[in-house]
């Protein structure tokens, strides 16, 4: 059996994480993970919804020690939880705060028993073939699609990212505004702490002032892991930002203007990561220097027909990408927007097909179509609109039902009730027709 260590650190006394009460050493983390592992329920599937990044990491590591798979859905809506429970009947939910786990058995993150970290003698090893994490995308059929990640490939992902960012030579303290559960936050905070020698801040700052406070709480050099959405809010607040040494953004491409503004405000280089939940991280760029992306070590792209596939290195199998990609002669590539079906709002992704399946599944809905208007500015946030035929249902009821099924950022604004949708003779709804409907019903409608 091929074994890969839980952490890449050279010493048990290295700092693994920063919490409000100070540093957590590698040996403390291992002691906590081993103590929790002894308490976890028997189920092979763990839905880890811990808000605190450190508790998430302890839960994840404890799961690995017990040979469990960490389930990491894109949304925590009631419908998603039901689907997960149906597919993994032994699932339980590890939670450290308020969370409505519905019918899923709940295991509350315990107050850690006093453990003697001095007794930890070595870094545990985990089988490389263990399916360590199962991330989900919304897919196009109305059911979440699972993407299994083996421990060996996850470690490789963390290491190549750390190498690209220079963290193996110079570890940084990581402050992340993104959740530990979603692919980008998982890779760029949790995996970078485990195998990029870079301790993370255990909180998840949200407001600009929280980001500033979190940066102040950790020693330099500092790496801020964020998104265009959080970054533009931070810059707009006009606060004095503590010294940052590296900025990382992902989930949606940044405009060159926002990248320049961020570099000027933080006096630090900004790197963007390109990847997807399906493929893991694939490439990076220094946005102010070159808009083309450079592949991470070991990763290769190939194109067949209209589709680009990623494979090699830490990528699991051969993964089709949903973006339109132009590969340059030097091997770097350019992104030319995404497949028209894909939706990205404030860094959260789904597909129109998935949204349409969800709304059509509501009892009383006869016909419905989601529509994403063009954003007014490159870094602006567009809101979805939905056109719905549902005699007898009110807008309020429909939105309440959708709330059970979708992440709140995907709820339509507005939801327009109609007598019929303008389908063409083959029953299709081309984007132009929806665009015209939007102009007529929403844009000219007094907004």
């Amino acid at each position: 059996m091929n074994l890969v260590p839980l952490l890449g650190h050279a010493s048990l006394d290295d700092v693994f994480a920063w919490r409000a009460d100070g540093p957590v050493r590698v040996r403390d983390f291992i002691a906590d993970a081993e103590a929790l592992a002894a308490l976890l329920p028997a189920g092979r599937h763990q839905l880890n919804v811990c808000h605190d990044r450190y508790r998430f990491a302890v839960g994840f590591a404890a799961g690995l020690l017990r040979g469990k798979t960490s389930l990491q859905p894109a949304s925590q809506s009631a419908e998603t939880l039901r689907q997960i429970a149906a597919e993994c009947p032994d699932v339980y939910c590890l939670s450290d705060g308020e969370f409505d786990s519905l019918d899923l058995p709940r295991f509350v993150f315990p107050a850690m028993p006093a453990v003697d970290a001095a007794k930890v003698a070595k870094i545990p090893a985990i089988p490389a073939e263990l399916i360590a994490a199962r991330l989900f995308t919304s897919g196009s059929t109305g059911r979440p699609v699972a993407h299994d990640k083996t421990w060996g490939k996850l470690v490789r992902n963390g290491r190549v990212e750390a190498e690209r960012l220079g963290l193996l030579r110079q570890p940084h303290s990581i402050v992340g505004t993104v959740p530990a559960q979603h692919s980008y936050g998982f890779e760029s905070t949790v995996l970078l702490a485990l195998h990029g020698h870079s301790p993370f801040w255990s909180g998840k700052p949200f407001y600009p002032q929280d980001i500033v406070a979190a940066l102040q709480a950790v020693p330099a050099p500092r790496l801020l892991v964020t998104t265009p959405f959080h970054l533009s809010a931070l810059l707009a607040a006009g606060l004095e930002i503590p010294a940052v040494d590296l900025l990382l953004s992902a989930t949606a491409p940044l405009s060159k203007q926002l990248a320049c503004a961020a570099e000027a405000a933080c006096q630090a280089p900004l790197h963007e990561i390109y990847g997807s939940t399906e493929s893991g991280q694939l490439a990076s760029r220094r946005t102010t220097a070159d808009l083309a992306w450079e592949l991470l070590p070991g990763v290769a792209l190939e194109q067949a027909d209209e589709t680009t596939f990623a494979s090699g290195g830490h990528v699991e199998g051969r993964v089709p990408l949903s973006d339109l990609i132009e590969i340059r002669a030097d091997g770097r590539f350019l992104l030319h927007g995404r497949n028209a079906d894909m939706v990205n709002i404030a860094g959260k992704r789904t597909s129109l097909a998935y949204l349409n399946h969800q709304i059509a599944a509501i009892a009383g809905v006869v016909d419905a179509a989601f529509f994403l208007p063009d954003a007014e500015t490159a870094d602006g946030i567009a809101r979805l609109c939905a056109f719905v035929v549902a005699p007898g249902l009110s807008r309020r009821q429909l939105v309440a039902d959708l709330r059970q099924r979708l992440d709140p950022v995907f709820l339509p604004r507005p939801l327009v009730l109609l007598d019929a949708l303008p389908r063409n003779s083959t029953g299709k709804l081309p984007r132009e027709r929806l665009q015209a409907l939007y102009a007529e019903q929403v844009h000219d409608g007094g907004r």
Partner: protein
Amino acid sequence: MSAQATPEAIAALLPEIAELVVSALNLEIGAGDIDPEAPLFGEGLGLDSIDILELALVISKRYGFQLRSDNEDNVRIFSSLRALAAHIATHRTK
């Protein structure tokens, strides 16, 4: 931190905050239609994290203080319009 605001000061602030929420977020309802006790997040007014960050920016410019939270999922001051008004009344510097 300033002293706790009086109930009267909070009540007096309600219409102004309702107006600010509606105009900052381009809501399709009138400021008077917001129930001061109903949740702003989720059920109720239906705001999400995008709205909250936009509102936070407007509030910080208008009232001269920064919003704080240890967690995006724990933005209690948005639990209702009255809770938001109370928070602003207590922390405002202008």
